[in-house]
């Protein structure tokens, strides 16, 4: 990794890190969801500083160019993140449905009792 790219990746990692901390501080993002983004920022910085990681991983999975390993890992990570959010949305959909049904039934009960 060239020194210029290394600085660029470290800056991106730090920007993600600080941006997430700020969003949590302003209560725009819940702590439970901030954790995964903080890990992403940390991984960016780690890959830039510890230069042996990418070549080692490339060798491990059989990828010639370390840059391709970075793209590949990023893609896998984003897909897992999407899956995690789909799971959360599925759970929230059931919760919203149950709440809406309970509200509708309670409203009817309330109207009937008047």
């Amino acid at each position, binding site marked *: 990794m060239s020194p210029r790219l290394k600085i660029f990746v470290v800056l991106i990692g730090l920007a993600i890190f600080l941006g997430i901390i700020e969003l949590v501080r302003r209560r725009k993002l819940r702590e439970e969801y901030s954790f995964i983004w903080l890990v992403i920022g940390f991984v960016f910085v780690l890959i830039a500083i510890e230069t042996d990681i990418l070549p080692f991983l490339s060798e491990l999975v059989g990828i010639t160019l370390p840059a391709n390993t970075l793209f590949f890992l990023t893609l896998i990570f984003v897909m897992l993140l999407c899956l995690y959010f789909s799971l959360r949305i599925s759970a929230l959909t059931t919760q919203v*449905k*149950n709440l809406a*049904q309970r509200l*509708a*039934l309670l*409203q*009817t009960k309330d109207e009937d009792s008047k």
Partner: protein
Amino acid sequence: MISEKDILVLIPAYNEEGRVGDVIRGVRQYLPGTKILVVNDGSGDGTARASKEAGACVVSHPFNLGVGTALQTGYKYAVQHGYQYVIQLDGDGQHPPNFLPVFVTKLKESSADLIIGSRFLLGRNSDVTFGRSAGNALFGKLVSLLIHEKLTDPTSGYRALKSTALQFCVQDIYAFDYPDADFLLTLHRSGYRIVEIPIEVLPRTGGNSQHGGLKPIYYTIKMFLSIFIILLRKKSVKTTS
């Protein structure tokens, strides 16, 4: 002996202001002693008002949740209020109320937990489009094959449920956008019995069908996926009430 007081007539309705009143009056004519519940699924028109004016009890969703959820809200109401039977029909006036006493007789005589009104058993299905007819034939045959019983109209919304089936439907396992072939398969695999009776279906006189636009494509893919997943799941156990 089934008392009319034990029956809840359930009508899910979405933007059916112009039709739901006649449906309610039709139900009153054939089952005067039953309670009628309209689940107003977040309609933007006067469906709730028209239903109340016609003498029905109304449960209104705060926003549109889909026909499957609207039906489940009705089932939850029935269980909470101790009803033993639910007969459901659409709010668009396509299901003639003169078949309601037939459902009551069948509830009395049959050991089935779910009774489905099939428009294909009488051989008169003039209102069914080619796409809908093909979908019914496809999923009807598929479900019949999987449950080893003949079902001809898995998409029919004219149904009657006993308390056993109601107990099943109020759980979170019931998560069906359209409680059609996948629902029937799940129910059968959980040990519930399903039978069909012949009914007639009238042409739509207005409003919008839930199967318009690109929805049939989504419906077909989703239904195949849903059936496949159900076959991979472990069978659940029938609840006894």
